[in-house]
């Protein structure tokens, strides 16, 4: 899923500083799963902003709404009757949400309430870790299901660097050296020689290096 974190409260408050009426819009997709922008978090942020304003002695009207997804036009359509009534709409979706909303409703101001961080998963309740860099050409089958692009600090493709020590990365004792894991797994399986096969340079044109990307599935295009 796409993992995000809520922006610091001070930053959100600054965005809505000059607003008297806002809508906080949640998303039932990834941000609900990573507990940052679903209905519950919308409700919490709404309460916090209301309290903050009450304390200042001026009221902020906050409406709450959560839609199925903010990355599909048919769901964006559901807020058609609501936009236009607000000084701003604060989206709690990933970075895609406020952009899709802005494109659909150019006259309405949209603010992002979260910082979108990475593609990953929950390694324990409340802890998420990066697993994919979205490079556009998956190569994890070469590395027993571990991605050195997303999980090596240097995205090295041909083995560990000199900063690997006791299974940890030199940037932090908290960060596993993924190359240590890859090599150990290959050794356990007796497949270490897989890593000796020369591989052609990776085609980075499918990653961000090729500019903004678009995915077209001809069989679905109407």
């Amino acid at each position, binding site marked *: 899923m796409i993992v995000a974190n809520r922006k610091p*409260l001070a930053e959100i408050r600054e965005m809505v500083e000059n607003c008297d009426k806002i809508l906080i819009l949640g998303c039932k997709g990834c941000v609900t799963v990573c507990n940052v922008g679903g209905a519950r978090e919308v409700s919490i942020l709404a309460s916090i902003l209301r*309290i903050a304003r009450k304390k200042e002695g001026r009221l902020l009207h906050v409406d709450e709404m959560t839609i199925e997804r903010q990355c599909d036009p048919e769901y964006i359509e559901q807020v058609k009757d609501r936009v236009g009534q607000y000084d701003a709409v604060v989206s709690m979706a990933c970075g895609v949400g406020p952009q899709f909303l802005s494109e659909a409703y150019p006259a309405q101001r949209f603010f992002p309430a979260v910082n979108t961080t990475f593609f990953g998963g929950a390694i324990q309740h409340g802890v998420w870790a990066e697993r994919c860099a979205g490079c556009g050409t998956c190569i994890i089958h070469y590395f027993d299901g571990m991605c050195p692009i997303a999980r090596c600090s240097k995205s090295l493709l041909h083995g560990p660097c000199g900063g690997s020590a006791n299974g940890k990365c030199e940037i932090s004792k908290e960060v596993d050296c993924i190359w240590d894991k890859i090599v150990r797994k290959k050794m356990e399986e007796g497949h270490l020689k897989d890593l000796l096969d020369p591989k052609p340079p990776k085609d980075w044109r499918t990653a961000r290096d090729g500019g903004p990307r678009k995915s077209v599935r001809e069989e679905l295009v109407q």
Partner: protein
Amino acid sequence: MAGCLEGECHFLTGNFKAKKRVQYVKKVLEELGIEPERVEMFNLSAGEGPRFAEIATEMTERIRELGPSPVKPQNAA
């Protein structure tokens, strides 16, 4: 917020979850410039009536000392 004694809750982890949530609420209050000590988590068993009364008194005194909530319109800055 009153929860069971730690390790003695019928719902096993409910009081631990509540504790973390109370900590979160305290953090939010602090960010908003509201005294975080207006919220507190206490752990006691259902049989501890006198302790409950003690806590109630302690919290009442604490809140009285802090004064009215700044969020109530008539108290707003």
